[in-house]
């Protein structure tokens, strides 16, 4: 049995003036230095010795990382150090990215979200990370700063496995960009935990749908499943089903069936795999029906 330390182990706190220096430091200390934002994942890992970095490289003061900007043409850019509460409180986010707000509110308690960041949630790459699914149905991408320059990566290519992301030593996620959601989109995040709020998700579904005249149904759907596979599952087949055929209520059940089949859940302390599958079915069907209702009522 792993017995966590009574307090944080020894490490050096590193605060450098520029992102260039921070990236260089990370590159110079491979495996020994960890980028540090809210620390809400990091500290837990430090105490139970899963993570043993010698250096925590603070990013919170770095220029540009605290910006949260919405451009009606390009969409939303969320600096790495923007906290979940800042995100939740932001008018443009509430209006244009409601699923993200719903999901962010599920993370821990209020005081935790004053530290926890979207970037941290994404970089931590936990299968049950609440904000990952919604960021993916908004087709977000991460903007990465590295010693060799910057690059952008769609979230779909960012996650390699639980806790594993496509970053190399010295790379820092600088911000996350969510493009403008399609005109007339509706969406919802449904998650199921043991308590009503603040628990880690046992299973969660993000659905985004919008009118699109180029599709047979006149709509397109994006469906993401969380906590039911090593990484978030995008349910392609169901998305296609709902776009390429005229909408019928029974299709939502069918799509939910497909979702159930596309996930690869595990048994763990929070739930059995079997129950997770069942939840995926129920939550997907509920989310699709509710999103469909709101699409109709607009």
């Amino acid at each position, binding site marked *: *049995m792993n*017995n*966590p*330390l*009574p*307090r944080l*182990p*020894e490490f050096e706190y590193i605060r450098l003036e520029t992102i260039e220096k921070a990236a260089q430091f990370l590159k110079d200390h491979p495996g020994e230095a960890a980028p540090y934002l809210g620390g809400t994942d990091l500290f837990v890992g430090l105490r139970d010795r899963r993570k043993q970095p010698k250096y925590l490289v603070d990013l919170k003061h770095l220029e540009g990382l605290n910006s949260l900007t919405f451009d009606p043409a390009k969409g939303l850019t969320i600096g790495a150090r923007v906290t979940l509460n800042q995100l939740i409180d932001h008018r443009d986010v509430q209006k244009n990215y409601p699923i993200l707000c719903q999901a962010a509110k599920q993370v821990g308690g209020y005081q935790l979200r004053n530290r926890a960041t979207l970037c941290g949630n994404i970089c931590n790459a936990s299968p049950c990370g609440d904000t990952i699914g919604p960021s993916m149905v908004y087709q977000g991408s991460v903007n990465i700063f590295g010693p060799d320059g910057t690059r952008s990566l769609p979230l779909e290519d960012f996650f390699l496995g639980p806790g594993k992301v496509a970053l190399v030593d010295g790379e820092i996620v600088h911000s996350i960009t969510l493009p403008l959601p399609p005109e007339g989109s509706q969406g919802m995040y449904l998650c*199921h935990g*043991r*308590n*009503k*709020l*603040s*628990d*880690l998700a*046992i299973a969660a579904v993000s659905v985004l749908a919008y009118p699109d005249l180029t599709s047979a149904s006149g709509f397109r759907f994006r469906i993401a499943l969380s906590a039911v596979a090593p990484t978030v599952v995008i349910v392609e087949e169901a998305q296609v089903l709902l776009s390429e055929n005229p909408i019928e209520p029974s299709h939502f059940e069918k799509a939910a069936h497909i979702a159930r089949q596309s996930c690869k859940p595990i048994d763990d*302390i*929070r*739930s*059995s795999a*079997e*129950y997770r599958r*069942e*939840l995926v079915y*129920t*939550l997907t069907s*509920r989310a699709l029906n509710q999103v469909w209702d709101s699409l109709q009522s607009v």
Partner: protein
Amino acid sequence: MKKSQKILALIGTNIPRVDIQEKMTGEALFTDDIQFGVKLLYARIKRSPHAHALIKSIDTSRAEKLPGVRAVVTGADFSGRIGLYLKDRHIIARNRVRYIGEPVAGVAAVSEAVAEKALDLIQVEYEPLPALFLPQDAIKPDAPLIHPDLGEYEVVNFIFPKPGTNISNHFKIRKGDMKNAWKNCAAIVENEYYIPHIQHVPLETHVAVAKVDLSGKITLWTSSQSPFAQRDLIAKTWGMSPADIKVISPYVGGGFGCKAGVTMEALPVLLAMKVKGCPVKLRLTREEEFYTNFVRQALLIRLKMGCDAEGNILAMENTMYWDGGASTEYGVNITRAGGYSSTGPYDIPNVKTDSYCVYTNNTIGGPYRGFGMSELHTGIEQCVDELANKIKMDKVAFRMRNVVESGDILATGMVMHPTGIKACIEKVAEAIEWGKPSEPSAPHKKRGKGIALMWKAPAMPPNPGSSATLKFNSDGTVFLSIGGQEIGQGAFTVAAQIAAAGLGVPMDWIRISKPLDTDYSSYEWQTVASRITWTMGNAILDAAKDARKQIFKIVAKAWKENKKDLEIKDGIVYSTNTDKKISLKDFVITGIPKKKDQGWIGGPIIGRGKFMPTYVTGLDKDTGQGKRAVVHYTTGAQGFIVEVDTLTGKLEIIKAVSAFDVGKAINPDLVKAQIEGGMVQGISSALFEQLVFKEGVLQNPNFVDYRIATTMDLPDKMESYYIEVPQDDGPFGARGIGEHPMVPTIAAIANAINDAVGIRLEGPPFTAEKLFMAIKAQNKSVD
């Protein structure tokens, strides 16, 4: 004014808590808040990774050499055993470890970090032994023995271990004629339930600081429900005089039973003996709190109940296997309590009970709010529901017919005292509109109602004592010295209320002497068993009586009046005969001058009081029969309306109602606060809580995966009521209410679930997953 009127002003009144101001400003002192200066050393404990193993060797030499390390202890440092009812536990494992988390070595160092480093340098070699994780397995004749020396352990005379087995107590009741009883039954129900381990989860984890001075005297600062029991137990363990041990206990950040007796507190004592003069602090991390401290024992309960065609319960066979864990030093008495209360609050003529305390290689079981009663009632109250179902009788009517009443002969032979349980049932049934269906909020949701009753007696040795001292100051204020602890339940407030009412002084004249300090506080056995208001209250009243006697003697002498004509009100002594008055301030320290400067009458007033039940008798080892098994029973009922989402299994509590007979509510708002808090803890245990062990390894030793109720998980509506059928020997008629509010909760919710979806789960927690899976299986079998 008449005496009764005067008392009314304070008793039955919502006096604000006396501890609330300091608890809201951050001033209230808890053990970890005490400042010890630079001499303070920090302890950390090396713990067993094996559930059952022999210790082949321990090498501490490298740890001892680490700079900053001041002391290292192992089992070799102390051979004695500790235990409240059965001495079966080593403070640090010797030769053998019996559960994962058992201490095998301890380090005191200049910081927690150094101590932690030292732990990594201690090498322990083990030889694993076969381990037992289920009581069913541990009672098998060929099961390996967890305590081969059980026969040699010291044990109190009401606990019956069976050497050569893993059974550390077997409590029996044999009453009536079982054979014929079953024959006369029109319906019989047989069921088995399993109630898993849970934890107390006080917000403050265990913390203790020990210091041993050069002469060997021990001072121990602890977060404790029972400083005196700790003192006496430690004294006994080390063969010391209790006078050479001083236990100081400030406010306790939640107890619920886990801070009764001695658990981790002996560890810093052992370390402090090696570094005389230095205080040594041990604070458990939350994770350690979960996996190394006492837990609520799991229970496997097999019940058989039968009734006649009219619905009279004729017989009950109750077999309980308590998973006592690796030590049952305290737990044995829980299994006894489960035994003598094993009928629940029902009048049953024929009873066969076997309550077994079984050693396993799980974490040690100990007292938990309810002392076995939540677990027991989870079984009984579901079984009663099933029995009523079987003879198609209304479940409330069935209970009203069978419930205990004044004068009933209980299963142990004791005669039942007056109790208001019927009024509690009526209150609860009315509040949840029993018999009237409640409309679900959506087509895929189903609603149900459930009710459950309870009783509980203070479970303790036959003669636990209480005492109180009232010491006046020159302005009439009074220091009330008690040994009962304020663990959140409001003990200090109620104590002050009783003292003020008993003396006839204003409430704000009473000051509780705190922190509790065994050198100065008046003796109290333990703050457990919901006994404090009752027993300590009696001791305080006795002390007030003693003080009044002294006061009246002085005043009567000075005024040349009859003592019987004197009264005290609002701190003023007056004569009902003449118009004379004198304030207590004027003489409680200095006395009253005799006329014409001819000397003085009186002197400082100190009231001394005590209380101890003297009437509890032993019970026959083979039949469980005796004249009076317990002091009294607090009874009550709870009702729930629940709604189940059949598509996810999620359960919503629409309404939760409690009613308990408290004898007399000294402070009604505090009674209600106990009921609410207890009910929510009960709900939490019913819906979320379970310590999940895999081969003895706890899988959820943190709040991430051991979920407890949050603000969001409350019932939509909660109501609490109390009934007052006075206790003949209670202060103003009061009985305890600390533990009871969570006793019927699991069963009441289980019954409501059954009413909603027709499902009975083997046991709590009634998670969405379990409910969903059961509904799914049910639908399949219907198809």
